[in-house]
């Protein structure tokens, strides 16, 4: 087996579209990825700094009210905060709509899939109110610009990002012998190993990687000083840093005075480590191709990674050039991919989303995603979403997909395409015969469209 346009769009893109033609070959897929990010321009999402500046402005305004000495200060501050949270929610829902529009309209579907894959690899979310609902902006700023670049650049952007620093408790980590600890600035704080552990276990080497608890501890000490604030963003605070060098995976980093440079150095070395190459090649192959991917294909991807010091498009190329990438039945679509590809198959346009007000999106898209088992940007832990089909093929998950598929007319706000045509829009020129029959025999457009979307051929990549 080798490249075919239908598989290319279904397995490595966002699904078939009645409007956008699938890619013609692997070179075209990679060329699109190397080109400008037109989907992001067409359907913009705010940068993390924009979101952070909003938080900073709110917090400044709130302090000003509190310090005003007014009788109603407390109540006014509360009102301001409520308004801010409502606004934040509004931005977040608009970003979600734009994420769906990107999937529905793009000619560069691989980029959307990769942006989702890497955002999941680097799962982070706001645990406290202020940072809640900033994951979209984080992914837009720290991950999306690097999906066609070097892994080490993405890793550095993510690990030194405020949201990751907050999510994995790096903001509470201080060196036991740091200036801050000696001056007892905050007695509650000490060394926190969370970021260091996940950095090794999840982000780079993998859980079976060649590291031990000593490496975790040393890396945690090396990371001290890395912090952030609402007003300044990420920053390095030497007074929090553990003095002296640290030895991670047998190599010494840092000297008497810690610096951000040392952190960049260890991140680069971790990114280029052979265990990282193996871990990432495997994970990409599992996500895109099969729960148990062809070892020869994974080996080719791993080699490409090592040969180029983690130049990601070369890893994708190794996958797409391998015959095993084009065989098998594909993986079960995760709920976000299912909804995205369903909307794409209906030919969703920005005009169709004109009636997508916040409560409408919550009820018709976000809540269904949650019931399908994949609440938007809300994975349970830093390990992100499970990759195996088993995790998604649950009674509740499938029932929720069917329930949602039956709501497509309301979601579009217009009559969907005739199922007899839709079956080709969604599944290509040769849909499975049973599905074609069902689309023709359905009593209503609504049921016909839902039956096509629920067909095993549509549920899989």
């Amino acid at each position, binding site marked *: 087996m080798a490249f075919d346009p239908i598989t290319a769009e279904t397995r490595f893109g966002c699904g078939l579209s009645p409007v956008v033609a699938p890619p013609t070959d692997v070179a075209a897929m990679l060329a699109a990825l190397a080109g400008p990010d037109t989907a992001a321009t067409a359907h913009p999402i705010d940068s993390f700094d924009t979101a952070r500046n909003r938080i900073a402005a709110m917090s400044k305004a709130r302090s000003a009210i509190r310090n005003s000495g007014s009788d109603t200060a407390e109540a006014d501050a509360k009102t301001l905060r409520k308004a801010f949270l409502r606004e934040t929610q509004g931005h977040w829902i608009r970003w979600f709509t734009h994420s769906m529009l990107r999937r529905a309209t793009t000619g560069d579907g691989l980029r959307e899939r990769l942006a989702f894959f890497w955002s999941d690899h680097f799962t982070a979310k706001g*645990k406290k109110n202020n940072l809640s609902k900033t994951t979209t902006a984080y992914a837009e700023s720290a991950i999306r610009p690097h999906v066609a670049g070097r892994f080490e650049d993405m890793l550095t952007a993510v690990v030194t990002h405020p949201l990751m620093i907050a999510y*994995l*408790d790096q903001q509470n980590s201080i060196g036991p012998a740091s200036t801050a600890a000696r001056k007892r600035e905050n007695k509650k704080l000490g060394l926190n*190993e*969370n970021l260091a*552990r996940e950095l090794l276990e999840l982000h780079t080497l993998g859980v079976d990687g060649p590291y031990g608890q000593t490496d975790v501890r040393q890396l945690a000490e090396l990371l001290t000083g890395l912090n952030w604030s609402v007003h300044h963003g990420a920053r390095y605070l030497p007074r929090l840093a553990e003095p002296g060098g640290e030895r991670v995976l047998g190599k010494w980093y840092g000297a008497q005075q810690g610096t951000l440079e040392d952190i960049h150095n260890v991140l680069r070395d971790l990114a280029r480590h052979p265990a990282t190459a193996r871990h990432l090649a495997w994970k990409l192959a599992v996500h895109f191709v099969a729960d148990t991917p062809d070892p020869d294909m994974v080996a080719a991807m791993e080699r490409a990674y090592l040969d180029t010091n983690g130049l990601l498009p070369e890893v994708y190329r190794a996958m797409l050039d391998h015959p095993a990438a084009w065989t098998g039945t594909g993986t079960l679509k995760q709920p976000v991919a299912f909804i995205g590809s369903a909307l794409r198959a209906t030919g969703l346009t920005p005009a169709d989303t004109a009636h997508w007000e916040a409560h409408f999106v919550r*009820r018709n898209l976000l*809540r269904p995603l*949650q*019931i399908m*088992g994949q*609440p938007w940007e809300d994975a*349970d*832990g*830093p*390990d992100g979403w499970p990759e195996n089909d088993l995790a998604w*093929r*649950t*009674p*509740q998950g*499938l*029932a*929720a997909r*069917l*329930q949602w598929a*039956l*709501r497509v007319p309301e979601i579009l706000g217009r009559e969907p395409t005739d199922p007899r045509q839709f079956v080709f829009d969604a599944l290509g020129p040769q849909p*499975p*015969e*049973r*599905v074609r*029959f*069902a689309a*023709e*025999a*359905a*009593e*209503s457009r*609504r*049921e016909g469209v*839902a*039956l096509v979307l*629920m*067909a*095993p*051929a549509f*549920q899989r990549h």
Partner: protein
Amino acid sequence: MPKSLTRRTFLSRAAIGCSLAASPLVTPVSFAAAPWDNRLVVIILRGGLDGLDAVRPWGDADFAAARPTLAEGRDPALDLDGYFGLHPGLAPLMPLWQAGELGFVHAVSTPYRNKRSHFDGQDMLEAGLPALDGITRDGWLNRMLQGVPGAVAETTYAIGRESMLLTRGPAPVSRWTPEVDIGLSAQGLMLLELTMQDDPVMAEVMQQAIRLAGQDGDGVVVADEAAMMQDMAADMKALRGTKGHLRIADFAATQLRDTARIASFSLGGWDTHARQAKNLPKSLGTLSQTLLRLRDGLGAAVWGKTTVIAMTEFGRTVRENGTKGTDHGTGGLMLLAGGAVRGGQIYGTWPGLSEAALFDRRDLMPTDDLRRWAAWAMRSSFGIGRDQLERTVFPGLDLGDDPHMLL
């Protein structure tokens, strides 16, 4: 795919007795036998239930002074044991108390102290660990199941839209929310059955989905599109509105009567910072209705084998605040119900409400670890080993003496 399948043959097949009842998608299935006969229901009360208001220490000399408005009114009909009295919102449960099917453990908490965050508090409660170190990946109910041979996904149901840390982990657990409601025409259902033939594994899961969707109130098959839309809108409204807890209770009862042995769900609405006298009765009413509905749904025989424990992330401050509510506290209340419990009594050690007796001079002092009570509920219901409970389910917990809370 048989070439002979045409619209006409499909429809005539439907007409000549390949009736809906015989469709594999709606045929009942049987599951393997459950590992035990007893039932356990775990309810998480999210938001921090004010145990001092729910079960009021009328006999404590400091109670009335700490709560000028909240402690008002003592209905003798709600007297529990001469020292404690029940909140009027729980009055519907008085018959259970009198029948010995309702009890409480007072002044208990998890090891969570001082930070008073709902999210961390609930994580502690559901993780069942002595401290939160990084991000927790499994809950205590799941860790218990990991040690039970014969526990399958259908043994345990986590009910509701939210993923609960309590049941999360490697042991298989079924999830369902009664919000999921499918309405298809008879024809649509048969066509779905047809398309699913392309993937037998998916077909099997879809069959379970249809079965579950048909069990939580109304059928799957609807007469026409208008009926379907009406049905779906009504269901969404019911769950958003005031009846969601009843559907959850009904669904839990249906599963527990069948092969399920454990059900778990959450009830919210306990974070009563203001106007507690107005707000708490609603939540207590919901809890009361849920328990009674569960009892009715289970029927006498199964109710007799059932233990319900309801627990919350922390209690609330002893003193009423300036907005006639209470703030996040420490020591809290655990509720026990079911035909299997030795009810009609208040368990635990009462620490008293004098200022010196309080935790941090503001909260009810926890005199016991609530995980110990959850552990004994599992030990007494399912015979889970002491060693497994102390090492795996609640690492480092000392189970202590059997409180004999079950019959």
